[in-house]
């Protein structure tokens, strides 16, 4: 990966992804070797939208590399409510930190932020847009369980607003995965993501239910369907109920099916799935640490190299 920002999964080539995941594997095998590697640098955590785990995951990954973190705190108490532009906010924060992790409720926020600062920006979720660091840890989880070649992946739930889905689907096109999208009609993939999939000639099929496709899958990626996506609560309960899985559902699945979820889950995966061989979502969440360490390490290394080139010139 030569760039020093991570904004969308579209910018990631197969080589970029594999380089980060190779490094994540090294980190996982020998975390001590990476301890303190970036001591004396600072990472700013800018979450304009509530998040606990992504923020903690980046914080923990940074600290394991010796990076100190500063946190913008809750949005209500920050300058956002006073109407400061994002462009101004990140330009100020650039003076405090060597890299920025940004989550923001508007699509395109990270793209904009990266245009205004020279330090690496990592998109940790922009509205219903993208969440590419999640995708890297998703791919790491898939790779460690199945490899990344000749995959059949089912992605189920809220495909319209689910930013983890958008990033994963685009990234999977690098590996020629067969992708099945399972969702209610009203929550199908948005036009922007279809566009990217279409551009790459990806093999994509859409389904109303899981049943027919389940026996073919290597990976089932489940996402939450949120109540606020439906005008009517009864409609929500009726629809969401059709996209829940439990241990019985998985009777029809291949033995080596990997079930994933970006978490937090509510009730779309019943607790009885946790005890099956299929459940990999806690492992997936834990993978956030080595993968985000590898990502931060890569981006900071690239930024330092770029700086060195500027001096030479």
């Amino acid at each position, binding site marked *: 990966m030569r760039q020093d920002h991570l904004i*969308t999964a*579209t910018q990631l080539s197969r080589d970029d992804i594999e380089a980060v995941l190779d490094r994540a594997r090294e980190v996982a095998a020998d975390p001590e070797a990476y301890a303190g590697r970036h001591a004396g640098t600072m990472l700013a955590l800018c979450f304009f939208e509530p998040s606990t785990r992504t923020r903690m995951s980046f914080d923990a990954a940074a600290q394991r590399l010796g990076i100190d973190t500063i946190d913008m705190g809750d949005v209500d108490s920050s300058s956002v409510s006073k*109407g400061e*532009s*994002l*462009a101004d906010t990140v330009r100020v924060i650039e003076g405090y930190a060597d890299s920025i992790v940004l989550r*923001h*409720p*508007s*699509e*395109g*926020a990270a*793209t*904009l932020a990266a*245009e205004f600062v020279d330090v690496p920006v990592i998109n940790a979720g*922009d*509205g*219903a*847009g993208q969440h590419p660091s999640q995708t890297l840890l998703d791919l790491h989880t898939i790779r460690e369980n199945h490899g990344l070649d000749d995959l059949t992946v089912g992605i189920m739930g809220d495909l319209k607003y689910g930013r983890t889905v958008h990033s994963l689907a685009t990234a999977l096109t690098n590996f020629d995965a067969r992708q099945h999208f399972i969702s209610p009609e009203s929550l199908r993939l948005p*036009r*922007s*993501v279809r*566009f*990217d999939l279409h551009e790459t000639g990806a093999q994509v099929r859409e389904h109303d239910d899981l049943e027919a496709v389940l026996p073919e899958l290597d990976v089932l990626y489940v996402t939450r369907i949120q109540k606020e996506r439906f005008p009517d609560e009864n409609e929500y309960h009726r629809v969401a109920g059709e996209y829940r899985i439990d241990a019985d559902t998985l009777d029809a699945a291949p033995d080596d099916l990997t079930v994933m979820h970006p978490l937090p889950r509510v009730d779309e995966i019943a607790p009885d799935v946790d005890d099956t061989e299929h459940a990999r979502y806690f492992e997936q969440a834990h993978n956030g640490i080595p993968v985000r360490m590898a990502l931060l390490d890569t981006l900071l290394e690239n930024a330092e190299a770029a700086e060195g080139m500027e001096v030479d010139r």
Partner: protein
Amino acid sequence: MSDHELRVSKIRDGTVIDHVEGGQALNVLAILGIDGSEGLGVSVGMNVPSDRLGRKDLVKVEGRELSQSEVDVLSLIAPEATINIIREFEVVEKNRVTRPDRVVGVLSCPNRNCITNADEPVDTRFEVVADGVRCDYCSTVLRSDIADHIDV
């Protein structure tokens, strides 16, 4: 006097936009931000027989020459258009429109949740793709509805 000249009279100084795809003339005016209130002399020909397009539209604007960003957006809805600059009743310049790689600061993003709609100090920027344009910030794709989002 030919049929053609009967429909649309000659202008002294200004721009003639010819070979506009049939039905797009009013969108061309929308792109140029012309609604009559500027007091410019405007004549519009619609569904004029054309060898090249079957039927074409034609727009003549008195006393106004087009900017590059206007021509860029025009190319999206009227890719076959020719732009004739008229001075003293003579065509002094005749150009085909070309599709730009990007359209900057002219369209507004139809995605209300796009960061470019949030009072940030940036121009909108759209990549021109096969059958429309695409927001550089939020990736929203805009196709036939381009003219509704012109923000000149």
